[in-house]
């Protein structure tokens, strides 16, 4: 009987995994190669499409497509732009806006969402006004905030904050309210105080939703920052951000530079969400297992 009750006795000693170098791992990473192949195929199709009329004559032109600059031209323009300080300043100012708005939204949104979730009185008081303000698109706030806030920069920060705030709050609220009642009951019958319940059960139980909210919120933040930068006109060339970079290229009539700006935004957004995923993995080791 006791032999059967001891799973440790027949648990095999774990075989140490074969150590592989980082480079070798990268080389053998199939999904990485699939990703690279997909991007190359996409670029080739784009190049062919854009140069169609050049190669096959105007009569074969696919309507509209011929106006798009081919990736090789975009790459050339990019190389020209790369050493310019203005381009990198655009990156920095957009990132600064995104991060500050996003952090403010997290800082205020997480406690607010948790309060809504755990306290009925708080929810009764604050949920209705929140729900009325939530459907207003962040961009609808632009005129009012331009009037209300003394500087352009502050209005952009405010609108950015709004974009992420509502998404984060809704996710935190939903996540905290959906924690399995068995966890709460188990903790309570073990004698958990309100604080133990909050810090050890509700908070970690809500973390996945917090990170979902953060990922979605980060996407919205980029959208809003870009739009706000285009609307506000950016002031000086450098402080305008990537949104103004695109707008400015449009005003200057450089199609290639517009595409450079767009791809830059894409890369920036990808970097941002990768960062959130990495932090999420690090914070939630139990989620890495699946």
């Amino acid at each position, binding site marked *: *009987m*006791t032999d*059967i*009750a*001891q*799973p*440790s*006795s027949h*648990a095999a000693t774990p075989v140490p995994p074969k150590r592989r170098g980082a480079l070798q791992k990268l080389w053998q990473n199939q999904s990485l190669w699939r990703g690279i192949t997909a991007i190359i195929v996409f670029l080739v199709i784009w190049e062919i499409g854009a140069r169609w009329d050049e190669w096959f004559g105007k009569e074969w032109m696919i309507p509209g497509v011929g106006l798009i600059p081919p990736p090789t031209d975009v790459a050339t323009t990019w190389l020209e732009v790369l050493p310019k300080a203005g381009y990198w300043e655009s990156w920095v100012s957009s990132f600064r806006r995104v991060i500050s708005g996003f952090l403010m939204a997290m800082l205020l949104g997480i406690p607010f969402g948790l309060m809504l979730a755990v306290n009925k009185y708080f929810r009764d008081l604050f949920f209705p006004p929140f729900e009325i303000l939530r459907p207003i698109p962040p961009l609808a706030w632009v005129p009012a905030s331009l009037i209300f806030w003394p500087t352009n920069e502050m209005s952009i920060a405010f609108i950015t904050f709004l974009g992420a705030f509502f998404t984060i709050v809704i996710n935190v609220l939903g996540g905290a309210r959906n924690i*399995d009642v*068995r*966890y709460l*009951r*188990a*903790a*309570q*019958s*073990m*004698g*958990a*105080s309100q604080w*133990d319940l909050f810090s*050890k*059960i509700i908070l*970690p*139980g809500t*973390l996945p939703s917090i990170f979902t909210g953060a990922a979605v919120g980060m996407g919205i933040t980029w959208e809003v920052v870009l739009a706000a930068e285009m609307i506000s006109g950016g002031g000086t060339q450098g402080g305008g951000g990537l949104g103004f970079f695109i707008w400015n290229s449009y005003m200057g009539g450089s199609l290639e530079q517009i595409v450079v700006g767009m791809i830059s935004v894409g890369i920036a957004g990808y970097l941002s969400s990768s960062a959130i995923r990495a932090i999420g993995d690090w914070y*939630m*080791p*139990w989620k890495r*297992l*699946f």
Partner: protein
Amino acid sequence: MATQKNRGALSIRNVTKIYDPEGVNVMAVDNCSMEIAAGEVCMIVGPSGCGKTTLLNAIAGFHSITHGEILLDGELLCGPGKPKADQGAERMVVFQHGALFPWMTLAQNVAYGPMVQRTMRKKAALEKARDMLAEAGLGDVTDKYPGEVSSGMSRRAEIVRALINDPKVLLLDEPYRAMDALTKSIMHESLLETYDRTKVTIFFITHDLEEAIFLGDKVHVVTTRPCQLKKTVTVDIPRPRTFETQSSEEFRVLMEEVNEAVHEEAIKAFQAGERELA
């Protein structure tokens, strides 16, 4: 852990529970009484959705009762004037689908009780948790997350998490429900071994008859909703029981006896189209 002789006697007296969702009264438990002696393994068998879990929730203090009273060692848990029992570590529940906190390792899960009760410092609690897990044959996986171990292991860890609080009663709500027969039989033997060590009173809900007879001192067959005590079968097969017990003649006779009672109720439940109550 100290063996407990005279603690954990449960008296369920004339308990009635009426749910009132949107004004439609649903009687889940009707005038149900049973006496569970200290250190007894008491198996509750009945058709799905009959209100067994309601009874367990009342003992654990998750739900109120409408009439009657429940006493633990002569002390009133809930009754007239106090419809809902306080939740307390002397009555630990092991849930139907398991409720280990997925964000804590097994050791952290087990250490949670003593830590929040402030009876132990974190380090001492974790140490004790590791010892107890090792005792239950989980010494190799103490620092794994519940998602990393098999359902059998996590259920066993959950029982350890309950036992570290030194409960008077262990309340188990079909803990081995979704397991295959082989895992189940291993679970049974390990539970019996734990019981022999601790002599904790066990209130065990199941609808697996073999499980009921194999584990129990008493098998209480309850009726389909509303839940009432239909028949009590005393299992006088001596302990320790091993899986050979299940092929013995006395086991077979008891099976027949319980089966007859349960079968009637199962047919009634089926005809009434009962669905599981949450």
